[in-house]
């Protein structure tokens, strides 16, 4: 969407050569683009330049002779004359290196950074031969654990302020800072308070020396042993660009890769450290088949025969499929094709009725790209807490509000990670969203200023379900309003990594591949030409599927990387559904609450183990690459489904992922023209954004305004997500698992008084779908009458997601 205007050019003289560069561009970058690399430590292209390490000094001609200036802070202007290679410059660089090395321990052989350390490299390239420093070096106590994930070795620190600037400017978690001054300056946390940031791994990545290291990576590899490929993170739907680094078929490190369009190089710690789940002890390695009530190992032949036979023994439309939201597009496409053309069932859902409607997600009009944040005048976020749900998107919104100066309006049932940087923050009681929207539209009372801000465009609106108990149609009402705002761009949110791709591939009760409605007869006919006859009518959604299984209308369930028992908003229903099903087969990488109850479990390849594409929340298609083989006998999903189809007397033609993408491109209108060459990673290559509904995409979803009844009841539930919940990947990543906190029940202090409970006491919450007991906590940001519970925790899951809950204090026996 965002067009960049043609940049103005100026001519500078760099080492005697006239060079055209962008006006105002920093000299250090301009020189690099012109092929002259200027050494640096403190400069990091996504952080505000501070010019303090002094490594990048160059000589610039000025009115009063030449001066040494840091090229990282010098903007390019017409006629600038620069020497970056003369004797004065070299002497200064050598001097800076010598200074830095005075107090730097020469423990490179045992330093994680050894081999990829700019200090080491620059010393070889620009440094003095040997140190003339005969005094004693500065000493600090050896590495201190500043969090469960990060270690700090102050002796190695060169005080470049990259880490502190990241925390200050980018993440907003200012938990490490310089302490003391001058030669005694050191980087520290406050006493024993941990560096508890969702983004701490980024500081490790950008630390130019081995001062900050990641516990999960420490001493595990030497950089020169690492093999790396570029890919995207499959932890959430942002599609952050990553470098996956392995040694001996082990993924040892995931680093962010700078992408202008998505993550700017940053990752959440969840993106970075769930790599541990790849090599979990508990990875599924062989097919499992239930015998005498136990899952036991079986051969692929035996397992697939059994599945083919059982699926063949029921009517096609008695079978349903759930999942594919964490699969690649190719896997999702094969899944949809398998269900619709081999099993011949219309019942499938990539979601678990816990986010927004399929059509809304797939085909919102005026769909936004992340980069629309760069030019937005006003940003409205009415969604889940982005810091908890889509942390990298949070960073981008935060940047827009704090660095780019956009006006930020945040509406959510409680304070969120963005509240501190927002210009207008509104909280409301879940269930009263429609009324809140009405007041916002009208610019009522406290909403007046925010309403006014929404008149200055471009207005980017990020809409999502604020919590599990919120009516999903509220987001559509918000979007309908947002469409009326100047230069509107709208981003509807879902969290799971490739949920947008799975919907685009037709893993949906409502959609056929390529954002075609199942009601679109023309589209149906076109697909039948390729796939053969399709099942009639609209299929069932996740909840309907579970109800069907429970009632016996449906007989069999296939899950692909989905866990309805663990994640569906009605946990009891999901449990009963799986119990009642005649046959359940799960394709997965790890056992979960659902697959543990399946009749057959088929181990499939996961992240890093298969190639393919995924589509992020902007509709950007990007490439995922393979760097390691799947464990044991695990196979790629499409090959499993292809094999299964053959055993069921059909063929899917799924020979390899690239062929599948070719087929997708020929069948799915929105994907026309996509091929792998287009998606190859490389400098400045960021995948392809699919055309929006105004382009060649046939489906057009017009969000409709709905009125959601504001409910009166005892307490309304805000079931909000937190980053470290009981997701499989977190539980199977030991470094993150320790960060999971149990759920609690938070109330406004006045409600605590009404309930006559104190923080730490217990309450019983009873909703439509279940009952739990939780410890109580105070949260002043909540509206009265609201109870906030963290979703998807061991101790909260049983509650389910009903809007109204009955709350009762639990009185101890003795009291």
């Amino acid at each position: 969407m965002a067009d960049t205007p043609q940049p103005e050019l100026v001519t500078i003289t760099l080492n005697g050569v006239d060079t055209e560069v962008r006006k105002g561009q920093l000299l250090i970058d301009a020189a690099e683009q012109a092929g002259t690399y200027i050494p640096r430590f403190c400069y990091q292209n996504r952080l505000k330049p501070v010019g303090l390490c002094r490594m990048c000094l160059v000589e610039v001609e000025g009115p009063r002779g030449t001066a040494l200036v840091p090229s990282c802070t010098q903007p390019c202007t017409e006629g600038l004359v620069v020497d970056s290679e003369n004797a004065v410059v070299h002497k200064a660089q050598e001097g800076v290196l010598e200074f830095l090395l005075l107090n730097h321990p020469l423990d490179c052989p045992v330093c994680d950074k050894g081999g990829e350390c700019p200090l080491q490299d620059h010393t070889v390239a620009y440094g003095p031969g040997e140190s003339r420093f005969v005094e004693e070096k500065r000493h600090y106590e050896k590495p201190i654990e500043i969090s469960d994930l990060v270690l700090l070795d102050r002796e190695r620190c060169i005080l470049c302020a990259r880490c502190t600037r990241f925390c200050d400017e980018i993440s907003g978690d200012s938990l490490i800072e310089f302490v003391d001054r001058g030669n005694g300056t050191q980087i520290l946390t406050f006493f024993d308070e941990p560096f508890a940031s969702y983004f701490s791994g980024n500081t490790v990545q950008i630390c130019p020396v081995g001062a900050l290291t990641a516990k999960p990576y420490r001493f595990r590899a030497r950089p020169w042993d690492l093999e790396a490929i570029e890919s995207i993170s499959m932890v959430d739907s942002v599609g952050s660009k990553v470098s996956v680094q392995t040694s001996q078929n082990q993924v040892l490190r995931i680093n962010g890769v700078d992408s202008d369009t998505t993550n700017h190089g940053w990752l959440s710690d969840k993106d970075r450290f769930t790599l541990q789940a790849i090599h979990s002890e508990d990875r599924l390695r062989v097919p499992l088949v239930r015998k005498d009530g136990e899952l036991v190992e079986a051969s692929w032949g035996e397992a697939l025969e059994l599945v083919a036979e059982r699926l063949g023994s029921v009517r096609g439309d008695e079978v349903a499929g759930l999942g594919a939201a964490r699969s690649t597009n190719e896997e999702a496409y094969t899944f949809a094709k398998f269900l619709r053309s081999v099993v011949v069932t219309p019942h499938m859902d990539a979601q678990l009725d816990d986010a927004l409607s399929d059509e809304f997600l797939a085909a919102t009009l005026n769909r936004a790209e992340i980069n629309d944040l760069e030019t937005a005048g006003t940003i409205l976020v009415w969604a889940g807490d982005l810091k908890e749900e889509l942390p990298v998107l949070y960073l981008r919104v935060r940047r827009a509000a704090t660095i780019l100066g956009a006006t930020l309006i945040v509406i959510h049932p409680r304070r969120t990670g963005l509240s501190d940087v927002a210009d207008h923050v509104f909280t409301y009681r879940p269930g009263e969203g429609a009324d809140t929207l009405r007041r916002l539209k009208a610019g009522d009372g406290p909403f007046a200023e925010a309403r006014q801000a929404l008149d200055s465009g471009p207005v980017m609106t990020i809409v999502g379900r604020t919590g599990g108990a919120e009516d999903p149609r509220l987001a559509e009402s918000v979007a309908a309003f947002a469409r009326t705002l100047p230069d509107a761009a709208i981003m509807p949110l879902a969290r799971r990594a490739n949920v947008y791709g799975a919907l685009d591939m037709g893993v949906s009760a409502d959609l056929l591949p390529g954002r075609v409605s199942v009601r679109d007869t023309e589209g149906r006919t076109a697909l039948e030409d390729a796939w053969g006859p399709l099942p009639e009518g609209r299929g069932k959604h996740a909840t309907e599927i579970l109800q069907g299984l429970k009632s016996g209308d449906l007989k069999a369930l296939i899950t692909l990387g989905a866990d309805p028992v663990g994640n569906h908003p009605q946990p009891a229903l999901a449990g009963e559904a799986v119990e009642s099903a005649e046959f359940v087969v799960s394709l997965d990488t790890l056992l979960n609450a659902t697959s543990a109850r399946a009749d057959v479990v088929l181990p499939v390849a996961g992240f890093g183990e298969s190639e393919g594409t995924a589509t992020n929340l902007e509709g950007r298609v990007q490439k995922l690459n393979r760097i390691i083989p799947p464990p044991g006998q695990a196979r790629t999903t499409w090959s499993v489904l292809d094999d299964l189809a053959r055993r069921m007397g059909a063929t899917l033609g799924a020979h390899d992922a690239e062929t599948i993408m070719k087929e997708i491109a020929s069948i799915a209108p929105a994907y026309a023209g996509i091929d792998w060459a287009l998606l190859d990673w490389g400098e400045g290559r960021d995948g392809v954004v699919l055309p929006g509904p105004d382009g060649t995409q046939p489906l057009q979803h017009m969000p409709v305004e709905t009125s959601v009844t504001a409910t009166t009841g005892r307490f309304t539930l805000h079931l909000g997500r937190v980053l470290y919940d009981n997701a499989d990947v977190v539980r199977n990543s030991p470094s993150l698992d320790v960060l999971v906190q149990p759920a609690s029940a938070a109330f406004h202090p006045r409600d605590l008084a009404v309930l006559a409970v104190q923080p730490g006491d217990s309450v019983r919450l009873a909703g439509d779908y279940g009952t739990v007991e939780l410890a109580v906590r105070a949260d002043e940001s909540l509206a009265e009458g609201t109870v906030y519970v963290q979703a998807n925790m061991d101790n909260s899951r049983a509650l389910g997601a009903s809007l109204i809950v009955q709350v009762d204090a639990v009185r101890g026996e003795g009291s």
Partner: protein
Amino acid sequence: MSQPHILTRHMVANRTDSNTLASYEQSGGYSALRKGLNSMTPEQIRAEVKASNIRGRGGAGFPTGVKWGFLAPAEPRYLVVNGDESEPGTFKDRQLLERDPHQLVEGIIISAFALNCAKAFIYIRGEYPKPARRVQRAIDEARAAGYLGDNILGSGFSLDITLHLGAGAYICGEETALLNSLEGRRGEPRLKPPFPAVEGLYAKPTIVNNVETLSNVPWIVNNGGAAYAAIGPERSAGTRMFSLSGHVNNPGNYEIVMGLTWREFIYDLGGGVPDGRELKCWIPGGASAPWFTPDLLDTLVTIDDVGQNGSMLGSGAVVVMDETTNVVHAAHRLVRFFAHESCGQCTPCREGTTWLERVLWRIGHGMGRPEDIDLLLDVCDNISPGLRWPPAMTTICPLGPSATAPVNSIMTHFRPEVEAMIAANELVQGGVSIG
């Protein structure tokens, strides 16, 4: 030699109560404020200050009128008074603050009017509680008398002054570090540009002036810029407060018209070196300035003459050293100061000043090595390439390069003495190397 009294006229005439409003008013205090606010426009006041040719008394010596002209139009804009006075050898602002705080307050109010600032801050170093108390009392008295606050003297102009106390950091005297400190940050100098006049306090246009600079404003407004410019040499106009200390018989602050010779200053005013000892050298402008030796006694005390001889008048601190001075120890003391006060941002300053200090300490304590001389000079060169004047810098602010001045000075003027000291060390130590 008779000294004129411009800045010190009131405190000299009213020895025991010059700090009070009553006494200040009796000797004509706040008449410049009345004149300025009631009968002059801000432009006219700025023009008088420009015509006075007064140059900043904080160290850099930049013409005040020119600096005021750079103030960007954005609002709000701030006036910040630099009373951080921490340069070794300097104690003149302390006297102005303690003995004549109203003169400063009046200067601030007039200047704020001229610059259209509604808020001014006075930053006083934390080690100066007494001067701070006196200034705060003066502010309170001025407010009670209607010289400060809303609609001053019915002019429609309003001003609020807040006194901010530093907390022990010399670097906060550097104007951008001072602004960071005022903003509640570490006192780390900022990159320039942008200059404070464009983006200063809270990123708003800000003028930073020294206490002495602004204390001159009432006189200039009362007597006119031309009268001020007529005092002293053209490019060193007006009188100036000098702080004289070290090995002299009459240490103290001297308000003088520039253009006298160093001999006149040190011997006639300062009473010469005690006990008939010989003058060895002196620092003409504070710890940051390269040293002068007796061959320059007959050169003039002006900004230009000192500059042409490779040093500066800086903050007006003259430190005299007699023949008994061990120059290595003296240089060590000065370098130790800069190492202690380095903010730590820039690598060359943070690491280099400490390195210099430690090598000088070794030499001074019998552990020097012949190669240390070249080492010291080369480390200096890496902080201030070429060791030229005015200094080139590999750093953001001049603190690091300042630390090279004493080292370079002793090597230039007293190298044989340093060598002899090292040689003696070697004799004592039998050439043992230290590692």
